[in-house]
């Protein structure tokens, strides 16, 4: 069964550094999403992406964040200058056309020191 994959599974970075989290959505999906989950809290929507542009973003998704689909398979989330409060699990999800279910990847655990 096709699945969403994410790399790396864990990332440790210093405050102020840039990080890029990578996702490979399910191959025929056209809608892509990033969510984050701070430890012990609920999953929060960050951004959705369709047709090579952002279709919606939350208040969390400020100028420090950006997303890109650099090629036909990858979908990336960049955090330009990480802060301690960016430490969280980041989930990528994808959805096909005429489908309503978003399928999640295994997540990247980001720790900012």
């Amino acid at each position, binding site marked *: 069964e096709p699945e969403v994959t994410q790399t790396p599974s864990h990332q440790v970075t210093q405050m102020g550094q840039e990080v890029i989290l990578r996702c490979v959505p399910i191959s025929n999906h056209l809608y892509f999403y990033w969510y984050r989950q701070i430890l012990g809290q609920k999953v929060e*929507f960050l951004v959705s992406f369709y047709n090579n542009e952002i279709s919606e973003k939350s208040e969390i998704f400020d100028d420090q964040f950006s997303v890109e689909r650099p090629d036909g398979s990858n979908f990336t989330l960049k955090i330009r200058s990480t802060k301690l409060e960016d430490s969280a699990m980041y989930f990528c999800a994808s959805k096909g056309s005429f489908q309503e279910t978003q399928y999640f990847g295994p997540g990247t655990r980001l720790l900012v020191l």
Partner: protein
Amino acid sequence: AQTVTQSQPEMSVQEAETVTLSCTYDTSESDYYLFWYKQPPSRQMILVIRQEAYKQQNATENRFSVNFQKAAKSFSLKISDSQLGDAAMYFCAYRSSMIGGGADGLTFGKGTHLIIQP
């Protein structure tokens, strides 16, 4: 904005018994989708079951079923014949049926930690 409330931070059930997890939501929309996701210790989010608001029939998936009460804005998950592998965090989520306009992302509740007692 839509909100999702899960009032049970933790639930415990004996193996092979039935347990019901509650979820309520607030929305002014008439058409939307509701989901239950399971998050085991590995922290991967796994879809358990989905319900379309326009369908009156409650969704079922093997041992998992929902009780969808649209007027009450309630969407509970029933797990029958609980198994040790069901132990996880369970999140209720809402998505508008509107495309774009702030409707794309899922809105999650805070989750219910389900413990299965052997």
